[in-house]
């Protein structure tokens, strides 16, 4: 029996390894030596509670190639530029593999392959057959889930428990969900003839690499389009592993093509004259750039962009649940979530008690190795993002926000940021307006529901919002007044293939997921 377990069993029997301290003796020792204050005692206790033995997921399940080529027309094709970029493991800062850098020639090749597959195969195939391919992809993804989860955590720094329990299962669900739509499109818009758009160019971000690929590919393929997909340059590996799944599923060559690279590669795809539709998920700045680039064309466009979502906690909320929701809202995936609840709006009368509870809970978050099954907060996705977060934290401090960072340890190697928050902030502060995309929470207060609505809507973004209250009528009133595409009431950061996701205002347009997620890929005749 280990010492810890021994202590626990003794404690259960009413005994303890050391005799219990009587209150009188506490007083005595207090006078002589400096007894730790209640706060530090709490912190120590929490730390002991959070210090688990390492439980790393084995990375042996993943076989990394030395270098990765584009996937065009069902084959891995070396980049015409002959150049490769490094894909870095942000938890160590070390190179995982080399990934091809795509240029105009590569994009031309991929678009031509997609066009040929659209004309000759995919648009002619019975919808029920398209459906079966997507079901197959979903199944194979489920079967190879562990491999994908480990690779996702290695490549992007996200905790294995999130890639294992959220990213990969949701990606599989997305294919499964849209597979069933392929041969039922006539029910999606009754009385109208629908047709696919053609070749879709899809550009996805680094925060949920495989999941975003699934969000883009599944509805596009189900509706009969073919695709050229460009993963983010930081996180291309799971998309490239997905090519193996597509092959295994027997997907006809050219239906999905993947060209890797950075901004220039994406630019070539956006400007390509033979692309009918661009779907982009990423920052609002790049989204606007893309929108300007397609302005003089007939290309369709959907954008899923940034956010500065408000998580509103009313005094009549179930506070402990709300604390969990706020934690999940901002520290899930290191805060690299476009819909992160990055602005906490807490009713003034409960501010102090709520922040106290929140800080106590924050102390229990384990920051560390993304592959460790106990890790709550993994590595910041890239050095660039890590520096950006640091910079914004400094701006927050300079502008007078009260900064609090948890006392738990974080690895000194790799790119890590401990969960933190700012109190004493107003809506005009930079950290209350700018999307930080990191584990940084900004706390604001309000006095009335109307003020909460006003403050929540006082942003050019409109992606998501959270409402915490035990009063149903209040939730409905506030929800209908919030200009955000997704409202989480008494929950946060929940995603599902059947649930439409997308923003209002400068958070983009179009929906992904659900029936509504079909429309961006269909022409109504």
């Amino acid at each position, binding site marked *: 029996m280990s010492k810890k377990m021994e202590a626990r069993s003794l404690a259960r029997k009413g005994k303890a390894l050391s005799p219990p301290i009587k209150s009188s003796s506490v007083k005595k020792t207090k006078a002589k030596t400096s007894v730790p204050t209640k706060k530090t005692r709490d912190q120590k206790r929490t730390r002991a509670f959070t210090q688990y033995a390492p439980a790393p997921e084995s990375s042996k399940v993943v076989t990394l190639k030395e270098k990765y080529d584009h996937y065009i027309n069902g084959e891995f094709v070396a980049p015409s530029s002959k150049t490769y970029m490094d894909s870095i493991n942000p938890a160590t800062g070390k190179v995982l593999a080399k990934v091809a850098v795509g240029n105009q020639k590569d994009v031309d090749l991929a678009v031509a392959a997609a066009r040929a597959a659209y004309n000759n195969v995919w648009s002619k195939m019975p919808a029920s057959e398209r459906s079966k391919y997507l079901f197959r992809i979903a199944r194979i993804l489920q079967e190879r889930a562990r491999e994908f989860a480990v690779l996702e955590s290695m490549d992007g720094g996200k905790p294995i428990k999130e890639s294992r329990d959220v990213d990969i299962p949701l990606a599989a669900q997305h294919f499964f969900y849209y597979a069933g739509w392929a041969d039922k499109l006539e029910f999606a818009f009754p009385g109208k003839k629908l047709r696919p758009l053609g070749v879709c160019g899809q550009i996805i971000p680094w925060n949920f690499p495989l999941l975003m690929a699934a969000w883009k590919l599944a509805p596009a393929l189900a509706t009969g389009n073919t695709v050229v997909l460009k993963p983010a340059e930081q996180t291309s590996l799971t998309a490239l592993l997905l090519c193996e799944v597509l092959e295994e599923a027997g997907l006809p060559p050219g239906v999905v093509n993947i060209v890797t690279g950075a901004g220039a590669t994406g630019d070539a795809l956006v400007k390509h004259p033979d692309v009918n539709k661009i779907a982009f998920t990423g920052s*609002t700045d790049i989204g*606007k750039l893309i929108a300007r680039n397609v302005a003089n064309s007939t290309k369709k466009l959907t954008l899923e962009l940034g956010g500065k979502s408000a998580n509103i906690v009313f005094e009549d909320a179930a506070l402990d649940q709300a604390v969990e929701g706020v934690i999940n809202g901002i520290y899930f995936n290191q805060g690299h979530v476009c819909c992160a609840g990055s602005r906490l709006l807490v009713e003034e009368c409960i501010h102090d008690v709520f922040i106290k509870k929140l800080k106590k809970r924050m102390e229990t978050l384990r920051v560390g190795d993304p592959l460790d099954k106990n890790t709550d907060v993994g590595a910041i996705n890239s050095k660039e993002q890590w520096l950006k977060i640091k910079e914004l934290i400094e701006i927050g401090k300079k502008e007078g926000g009260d900064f609090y960072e948890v006392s738990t340890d974080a690895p000194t190697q790799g790119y890590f940021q401990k969960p933190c928050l700012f109190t004493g902030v107003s809506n005009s502060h930079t950290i209350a307006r700018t999307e930080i995309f990191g584990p940084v929470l900004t706390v604001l207060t309000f006095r009335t529901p109307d003020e909460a609505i006003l403050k929540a809507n006082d942003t050019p973004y409109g992606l998501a919002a959270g409402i915490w209250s035990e009063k149903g009528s209040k939730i409905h009133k506030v929800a209908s007044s919030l200009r955000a595409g997704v409202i989480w009431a008494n929950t946060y950061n929940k995603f599902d293939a059947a649930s439409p996701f997308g923003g209002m205002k400068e958070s983009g347009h179009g929906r992904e997921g659900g029936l509504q997620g079909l429309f961006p890929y269909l022409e109504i005749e």
Partner: protein
Amino acid sequence: MKVLKTIKLYINGEFPRTESGRSYPIMDHDGKEYARVCQGSRKDFRNAVEAAKNAQAAWSKRTAYNRGQILYRMGEMAQGKLEEFSQLFQTCLGLSHEKSVDMAQAGIDAFIYYAGLADKYTQILCSVNQVNGPFHNFTTPTPIGITTYADADKFDFKLLVSHLCAIILSGNSVVAILGKGCPAIIAPLSEVFATSDLPPGVINLITGSFDEVAGFVAGHHEVQALFVAGDRSANSKQVSELKLLAVDNMKRLHLIGEKTSALELVMKAVEMQTIWHPIGV
């Protein structure tokens, strides 16, 4: 002797002249001056957006039943002006009596059609989503907010009425810039709106040149959507320029026209909002 008038604008439920003081004559089909209309300016447009902004929240909070009744009231008031509408179409468009009555009646019928849609479109567009967990999850259309509308240059009364009704029935407010085809329509149409219990500012009408204010309209940051009627091509020079300007605040730009169905129109004027709530005790 006939008294010639300058037809005024319709902003915030009132009938102001353009602040610019500009007006231009419109001719009847025989080439004689019929009346003068205001040439609306950027400032007029800005004022109208202000009115639309002030009106929108309260309008969207009305019940759908109430909005439907107000649209129906517009139909009733328009029916009382059938003669005036048809006379106008005969004079300005050179239509025969029969054709002008048909056109007027088609517009009036459009009011009635959309009155009946105001409390139904959510049932058509809403969904309850079966998510993989104990959550009640539903998606519902919500109004976009403050919108602008540029009418087609080729005048079609039914389309104009349909477009305006489809935009406002979900709780949006609109600033409409009327086309070159029949700007004098602003007179009887604004009287319909002013006498139908429509809250001031929900519909604002401006005459003048869309081309002149187009850039300003597409770039205005308070405006959430711009509807351009007349089946314009998505890559025409003007539309491309509008798209470019609309990017700044991610304004939704919708090209609509004869082929756009009622439901599509309504869909273009709403934003889908998805709400999650746990199910449990």
